[in-house]
């Protein structure tokens, strides 16, 4: 499973240690340099050098972004945890990791599950039996899954457009928040693009990898890659973590090659921006839309470097006053912050971001990651929207459709 992580490239400058949010709040965590390239040298000599404290790594990749030598520190740590950290994930970790399975079940019983999960007794029960912190707000499940809605209400109309893109919706859109997917389909249709879904879509694997379930993640990766190849189109995403997983974690952490399709998987805001910039599509925004928006860059989007596309799309909307928040980790790191033992660290890491948001006093926050959204909504008390949903709120669909008429058959 070991990939080329470039750990011999480390020149021991310690720059990575300055940018690690976990190191700042948790003295038990050895930090990226020691847990990553330094530790790897020892572990290669004797696996007994494996340090259990590596589990505290958020896999936020901020260390990698800062490293001047291109060492894939996060990958080294994740791979070490998978290789040497023999502990079998317990029920709680498997539940949090299997977003597909749990989501499917929960969606089916959403009206019952939502109030129960939100109730005090259930939270207390989950806290002491499962170790899911009772202070967490659980994202609500939707009663109609996105893929079900799409097949029922949207699919048949998609072929009237000349060009077609595929949408990788991810678990969050499918089980918790189908509205985001609906927003994207509406925008793309108005811009003259038809949308299809993958023949078979599985959870991208991020929660599986971070809970040590690499085999399950690899199974999903293979199914997703096969479907992406089959689709033969550009594949759009609305979640930065799904995007990073498909593009980088598959080859780097799971050892599954994707170089033939890697460039085709892109965030929807990047796709829209590039189409607008090239003049291929035209967007017309309502003139009565006004909002003061604070944009938060998720760690995984910073790693991709694509936050500029989301920012540019938001700036394109005439009535938007945009505050670009200084890039700070929100602290949740996917399923990490849901675990009882991590709750305090998670909130402490996020505090910098929460106070930046409070200072910016926006109408709402925009960001491209669903777990950042949960964390910010719960901890900073502000509504959080995906840039795609903001575009959908501000777009004049009628005018946009007319402007892009020539794209339809």
């Amino acid at each position, binding site marked *: 499973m070991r990939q080329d992580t470039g750990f011999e490239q480390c020149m021991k400058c310690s*720059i990575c240690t300055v940018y690690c949010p976990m190191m700042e709040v948790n003295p038990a965590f050895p930090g990226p340099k020691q847990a990553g390239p330094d530790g790897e040298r020892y572990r290669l000599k004797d696996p007994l050098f494996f340090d259990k404290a590596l589990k505290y790594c958020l896999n936020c990749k901020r260390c990698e*972004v*800062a490293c001047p030598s*291109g060492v894939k520190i996060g990958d080294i740590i994740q791979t070490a945890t998978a290789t040497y950290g023999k502990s079998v994930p317990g029920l709680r970790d498997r539940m949090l990791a299997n977003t597909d399975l749990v989501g499917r079940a929960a969606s089916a019983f959403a009206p019952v599950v939502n109030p129960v999960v939100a109730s005090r007794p259930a939270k207390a029960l989950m806290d002491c039996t499962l170790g899911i912190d009772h202070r967490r707000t659980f994202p609500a499940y939707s009663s109609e899954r996105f893929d079900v809605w799409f097949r029922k209400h949207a699919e048949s109309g998609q072929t009237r457009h000349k060009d077609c893109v595929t949408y990788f919706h991810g678990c969050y859109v499918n089980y918790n928040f189908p509205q985001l997917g609906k927003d994207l389909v509406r925008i793309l249709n108005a811009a003259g693009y038809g949308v299809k879904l993958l023949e078979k879509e599985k959870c991208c694997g991020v929660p599986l990898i971070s809970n040590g379930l690499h085999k399950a993640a690899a199974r999903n990766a293979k199914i997703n890659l096969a479907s992406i190849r089959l689709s033969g189109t550009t594949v759009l995403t609305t979640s930065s973590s799904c995007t990073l997983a498909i593009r980088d974690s598959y080859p780097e952490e799971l050892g599954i090659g994707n170089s033939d399709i890697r*460039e085709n998987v892109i965030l929807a805001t990047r796709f829209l*921006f590039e189409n607008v*910039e090239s003049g291929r599509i035209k967007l017309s925004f309502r003139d009565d839309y006004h909002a003061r928006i604070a944009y938060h860059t998720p760690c995984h989007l910073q*790693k991709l*470097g694509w936050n500029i596309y989301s920012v540019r799309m938001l700036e394109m909307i005439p009535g938007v006053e945009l505050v670009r928040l200084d890039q700070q980790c929100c602290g949740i790191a996917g399923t990490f912050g849901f675990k009882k033992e991590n709750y305090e660290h998670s909130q402490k890491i996020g505090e910098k971001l929460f106070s930046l948001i409070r200072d910016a006093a926006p109408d709402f926050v925009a960001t491209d990651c669903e777990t950042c959204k949960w964390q910010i909504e719960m901890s900073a008390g502000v509504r959080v929207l995906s840039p795609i949903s903001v575009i959908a709120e501000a777009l004049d669909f009628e005018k946009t459709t007319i402007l892009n008429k020539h794209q339809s058959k």
Partner: protein
Amino acid sequence: MRYDTIILGGGLSALVCGISLQEKGLKCLIVSSGQSALHFFSGSFELISTGGSQREAMDNLPDGHPYRKIGLDRVMELSKSVPEFFARAGYALSGEYDRNHVENTILGSQKQVWLTVGSEGDPPVRGRLPISPLGVKMQMDLRKRFETLGGDYLMGDRAVRGEFREGRLSSIFTENHGSSPFAADKFVMATGSFFSKGLVSTPSGICEPVLHLDVDFCPDREDWYGMGFFDNQPYMRFGVACSDRLEAVRNGEILPNVYVAGSLIGGADPIKEGCGAGVAIISALYVAGQILEESL
């Protein structure tokens, strides 16, 4: 994506140049593959440390030194504007722009320096070696200032190649953005020296790996290193070739819309002359001045 100016690099030179341009309203992009030499900043900038009066010390600089290209009087003029520049970014610098003062180093010796963060005589701010908390803070603060002024900063992304049209650089491509080009009217190369991989050593010589700019170096490898530790180290002076206006040269031709700034420029020996930060800051201000002149 289109910008007025795109700066490759992300260290002191790139940030000073980017901030100067954004202050005047040009839309800039900085592409930085990782953190920079600023993380090891001692707390004092050096302009030239070989003598008492800086202007006089400069008279002894060899031909081809970046200060000579810029013009020694112009260097002093730009030097005068540096304290103001940092004050706008929230940093009070002590010391005179045209005279060195003496600083105690962490090693206990004394050193001639130009401008110091905080007030003179403060003990040097240093945490655990080798990272300097002050340098880290300055890197973050300058980046924040650049972004607050409206600039885009791509952190952890490497510029990999350029596209040329009619003798000019038209766009660059980066690792993270694959086939999506970044286009601009002007470009500044501030990718640093060997330490930051702005220059790399290959079997056929020294090369600048992004745009393949011409590099000045002695062709004979035997001449690269001085014998003793304190001897001249000729390789320190290696760097990309450029005109007196600091325009880059490629295949022997001047690239009229690509400037070079910082330690990537050849001709200086920052250790011997004590001019590392000086070259980074002064060349950045000089290049920004020219870009502004041409754009307004």
